[in-house]
């Protein structure tokens, strides 16, 4: 499956958007059947983007249709002169709420959109705002009750495993290299728990925004390096834990 392991990870001077995706075919193009997979990320401004997450199993066709429809709506928004991630999220919220007719609200699957990026006012900081299909205002409009997240955010089907590792190991003072390594360690642990059931995909697609980089996809060479380092960490931890045999002291 795909888009079931998602994260927004805020490191020292940047932010990563993470989603799982199937392995690319030999020609390098990720496909599901005959249809090309849409990206789970939408560029909103130079320093902000939206990422989709699906928290319960959803038919792939329905998922792709939702992604295409919501992405198209988000791309139509004019963000000129907007400098706060909260204001960007508010525009997204309004656009998405208007997109869904009242008679469709009750049948809308459980999914969410994280609006993330660099705010330059009122303070300069990286922000993450969650919009969810099931968080609705008094008029029952979806995506209308935004949530601000002070730390990292994990969506999809394994947020508990990610939160568990986040609490144990993550530091906001990580640099980009260590943040990427952390992401792959989370994915390895989650994939062992759920990958065998086909619920999360074996590869990751990662985008970034930082103090020095506008919204862009993280190069595959960086992903390969991080994945390899995380695999080494995971292997060493695994061996150490097995060696202690349920007794004390790693």
């Amino acid at each position, binding site marked *: 499956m795909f888009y079931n392991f998602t994260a927004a990870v805020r490191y020292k001077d940047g932010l990563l958007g993470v989603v799982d995706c199937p392995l690319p075919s030999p020609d390098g193009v990720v496909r599901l059947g005959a249809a090309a997979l849409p990206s789970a990320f939408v560029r909103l401004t130079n320093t902000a983007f939206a990422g989709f997450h699906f928290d319960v199993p959803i038919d792939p066709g329905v998922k792709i249709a939702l992604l295409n429809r919501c992405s198209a709506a988000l791309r139509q928004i004019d963000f000129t002169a907007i400098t706060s991630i909260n204001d960007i999220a508010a525009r997204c919220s309004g656009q998405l709420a208007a997109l869904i007719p009242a008679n469709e609200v009750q049948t809308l699957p459980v999914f969410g959109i994280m609006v993330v990026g660099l705010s330059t006012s009122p303070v300069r900081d990286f922000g993450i705002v969650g919009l969810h299909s099931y968080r609705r205002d008094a008029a029952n409009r979806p995506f209308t009750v935004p949530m601000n997240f002070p730390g990292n955010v994990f969506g999809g089907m*394994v947020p*508990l*495993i990610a*939160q*568990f*590792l986040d*609490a*144990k*190991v993550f530091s906001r003072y990580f640099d980009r290299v*260590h943040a990427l*390594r*952390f992401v792959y*360690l989370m994915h390895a*642990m*989650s994939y*062992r*728990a759920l990958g065998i059931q086909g619920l999360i995909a074996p590869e990751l697609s990662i985008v970034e925004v930082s103090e020095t980089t506008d919204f862009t996809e993280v190069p595959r060479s960086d992903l390969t390096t991080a994945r390899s380092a*995380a695999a*080494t*960490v995971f292997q*060493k*931890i*695994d061996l*150490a*834990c*097995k060696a*202690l*045999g*349920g*007794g*004390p*002291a*790693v």
Partner: protein
Amino acid sequence: MSLAIALRGYTGLVLAADSRATGPTSSEDTSEKFLQINRDTGVLTFGLKDPGYSGITKLVEVTKAQRFESFARITTEGQAIFTAEYQRWLAGANLPAGQVLQQGSVAFLVGGYDAVHSNQFKVTSYNSPDFAPVKVEMPKLLAARWHIAEAVTALFFYPEMTVNQLASLAVLAVMETMSIDPTVGGPIQLATITWHQGFRKVTEDEILKYIEGNQSTIVGLNRALNQLIGE
């Protein structure tokens, strides 16, 4: 919601659960999720509290009254008893019109030593609404809020573990889940099933010793993770 664990090792079985019952607006840590059925067998419930508790109570009553001898007989009768208790609860539950309970809203595990037919430690699981018995072939079964427990046991578990080691691991898995998941909490409930002692509910003092013993494991795991990821 809750967490239920069954681990099978070299010398027996361990069953574990938390004791939190979570409602729409509050939670309480008073849920009794285990009962002993006979010398070698126990039953555990998770999910909806009321039909779960009445299901395990009824299975114990019927087993004692009718003197079921074998693990197979208990597990077969379990389906009828759990279904009847669930239907009785549903009839009086006054659920809102149109509300459909999800599959597995109430679930049970029967674990024990089959001394009559196979001389093996066995676990059978049941899920609402039909409670069809499913033999658990894998040495680990983690149910309900299983995610963190799965990650933890995947790191530590191996099939040759003793019951004492399994008990320590089960407590660790529940502790680590409680540290993140607010729907799992309260006193840990634990039972072991071995050849020589049969079903035995582990006491609160013994569980406290496992909790204390696991502190160095948790600290060691945290330290190793932080050192390795920082390299």
